[in-house]
């Protein structure tokens, strides 16, 4: 575990979380959430939890993003906040 890389990726993760909640477009929020999941997966790989990182990369980043995009296309992209 290299603490410089860990702190850098943690800051990127926090920025992506704020961005995913703050952006005015739901499709953009879904894509930012996918990037957030991939950064989180990288963080777990650094911490030595390779099995958790693998599951997050396939299930969290892959399937969740597909579900979000499908749900946004079936409903509406408009959001007030």
């Amino acid at each position, binding site marked *: *575990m290299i*603490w410089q890389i*860990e*702190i850098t990726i*943690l*800051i990127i*993760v*926090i920025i992506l*979380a*704020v961005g*995913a*909640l703050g952006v005015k477009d*739901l499709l953009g*929020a*879904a894509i930012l*959430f996918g990037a*957030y*999941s991939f950064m*989180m997966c990288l*963080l*777990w790989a650094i*911490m*030595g*939890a*390779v*099995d*958790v990182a693998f*599951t*997050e990369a396939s*299930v*969290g980043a892959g*399937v*969740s993003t597909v*579900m*979000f995009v*499908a*749900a*946004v296309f*079936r*409903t*509406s992209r*408009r*959001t*007030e*906040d």
Partner: protein
Amino acid sequence: MDALLNILISKANYWLYIILMMIGLYGIMVKKNLVKKIIGLNILQTAVILFFISVGAKEKATIPIIEHGNDTVHAAVSASHYINPLPHVLMLTAIVVAVATLGVALALVIRIHQQYHTLEEEEILKRIQET
């Protein structure tokens, strides 16, 4: 004061996890859009999982796979050379549960949109009161 500063600096990554957790809680409570609420819920879940994983991490330790295979000579295994695998196994289950809740939540959102043609909480409440 010096002791407090010491705690603040030595536990810096824990403070960042708490910030991430609070961002998720903010998303659940303040955002009016239902999809934004679900994103906040997922951020909260991953922040808790991140905290548990970081508890198991150790300095100068390798991933939890024993290097001596089944047919080689038995050597003493020191637990301090391996990262604690117990939080990994618990959080693996939590990730799968998170995806299951996400699927159910998005299905409910799609059904709500079919019924009321909007995703904003206040407009949904207004249309419920109209009918």
